[in-house]
């Protein structure tokens, strides 16, 4: 069953056609990867799915909901979480607080209840912390729980951002270059976690990635993009062999 359906998606910035007539479907429970050279429009597609941009044409369907009509902050409530290419964490807050902010879409209390810290708020807080603690265990972040994010090394921040997305307990996880800036060992960990996320947590993953090794290891299907247009879709091996993809990467 398809969880996310992108139909004839196009966006233009002035005269620049960043994404042209892109269509694909992400099935429930798979890891779907978008690859392509720099400037191919991969992150633009992510931003279109997260409603940060409005498309010039086409639409994005999440189940029965048309995402393209929503505001950026409505997406989380539907069960879509994302990470960013350049890490967008809450720098001055602790790791724990970052993950707790990830739980925001599950909040049930209002401003007034928060102000008085009614018993309901306390109960909700305990539940949120329990959920966050499970993510901390999964990603081995216990050591950094109380640390301020701003002072953490890049590799750890990357994991914290993944954790924040997982704390949302999403149905669909968008990962924008999860391995960028990571060393070999950290990339290896990332590959394991992506597999865990898919198999143990049952979360569908849509990612943008450059590291073909990682792509081949974790992806069920791959879509290759160049100049905002789809070159090929298929299993990692099929796409890697596709003549147009080879040409795009090696310059033919």
């Amino acid at each position, binding site marked *: 069953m398809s969880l996310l359906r992108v139909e004839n998606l196009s966006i233009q910035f002035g005269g620049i056609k960043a994404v042209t007539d892109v269509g694909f479907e992400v099935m429930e429970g798979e890891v779907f990867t978008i690859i392509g050279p720099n400037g191919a429009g991969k992150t633009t597609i992510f931003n279109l799915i997260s409603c940060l941009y409005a498309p010039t044409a086409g639409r994005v369907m999440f189940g029965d909901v048309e995402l393209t009509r929503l505001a950026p902050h409505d997406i989380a409530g539907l069960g879509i979480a994302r990470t960013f290419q350049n890490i967008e964490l*809450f*720098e001055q807050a602790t790791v724990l607080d970052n993950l707790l902010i990830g739980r925001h879409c599950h909040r049930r209390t209002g401003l007034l209840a928060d*102000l008085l810290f009614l018993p309901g708020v306390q109960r909700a*807080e305990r539940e949120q*912390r329990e959920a966050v603690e499970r993510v901390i265990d999964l990603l081995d972040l216990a050591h950094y729980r109380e640390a301020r994010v701003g002072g953490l090394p*890049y590799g750890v921040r990357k994991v914290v951002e993944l954790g924040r997305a997982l704390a949302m307990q999403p149905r669909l996880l968008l990962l924008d270059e999860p391995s960028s800036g990571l060393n070999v060992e950290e990339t290896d960990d990332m590959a394991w976690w992506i597999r865990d996320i898919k198999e143990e947590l049952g979360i569908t993953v849509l990612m943008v990635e450059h590291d073909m090794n990682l792509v081949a290891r974790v992806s069920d299907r791959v879509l290759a993009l160049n100049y905002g247009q789809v070159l090929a879709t298929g299993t990692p091996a099929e796409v890697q062999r596709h003549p147009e993809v080879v040409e795009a990467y090696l310059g033919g």
Partner: protein
Amino acid sequence: MRFVFKTSYDQDIRLLKHGGQTFWYGLLVVALVAAPAVVSEYYLSQLTFIAIYALIGVGLMLLTGYTGQVSLGHAAFLAVGAYTEAVLQAHGVPFGLSLAAAGLLAGLAGIVIGLPALRLSGIYLVIATMAFGFIVQEVLTRWESVTRGSLGITLRPISLAGVRLVEEWQLYYLALAVLTLVLLGVLNLLRAPTGRAFVAIRDSEISAQSMGIGLARYKTASFALSAAITGLAGALYAHKLQFISPEQFGIILSVELAMMIFIGGIGSLHGAVFGAIFLIALPQLVAVAKDYLPAAIGHQTGLEPTVFGLILVLVIVFEPQGLYGRWLKVRHYLQTFPLYKADMFRRQRTFMKSERAR
């Protein structure tokens, strides 16, 4: 050194994290309650001012320190609170109601300025809030039928439940009570989802949105709350001064308020209170220092603003975390006494330059 061993989530949620805090805050409460019996009327009056400025500081800190929206128009919210109180008192409205109205009306003013401010950020927001400050000041000057214009309004002492608060200690307790309640409310807010949403907006708007935090809703809420708290302070301020006129609520006051929280330590409620203490204590210290300085310096006009400005520059250069940051370092030094490392608080170099990597 103290190590807090955590065994339950409640330990993180509680306001007082360990016995030491309970002891010291308890001692502070006792000292503050006992103050009228100990200090002279003059110093008590200064303490009342500190409580009122701390109240404004808490309001401004919520907006600037926690939500990241800089405001140079907070004197206007203070004015809205003060004038609401003055006008309602003149019409015979009981104090409890007029205080609530002062907070409410200032909160509404906060929403009015907050809504257009949603599209502005950084320096543009500063300019917009500044403009708002000028507009409010101008309205107060021109709307003579209500505000008596530049003539100002003289306030009578508060009567609360039949008691007229004419003594200094009565107003002191009132200001202290309001400050305590507001502090507790804000502390609650900050340990709950709403406060975390504010922090999220401050640190990264784009990922706050991806977490499902509506910028419009939370920025407006922050503006409204901040303005409402400042409005409450305004009502007390009006009674403390006993006379208000539009020129008291000018840009200079707004700048002073902003400087107060920066010097106190941005991003902490301690900072708001420390800043208030600094703001009230500095003129006294300058007055004392005047006698010891050479006449050529001591009798210069503008000595106080110069010292104020100098300290602000020094704080920004050497201690961006303000007085509260300095206090944390001193405390850490004492706690770890022989083992203190000079590099403990050295800020890490960031090689990835971006707007947020401060």
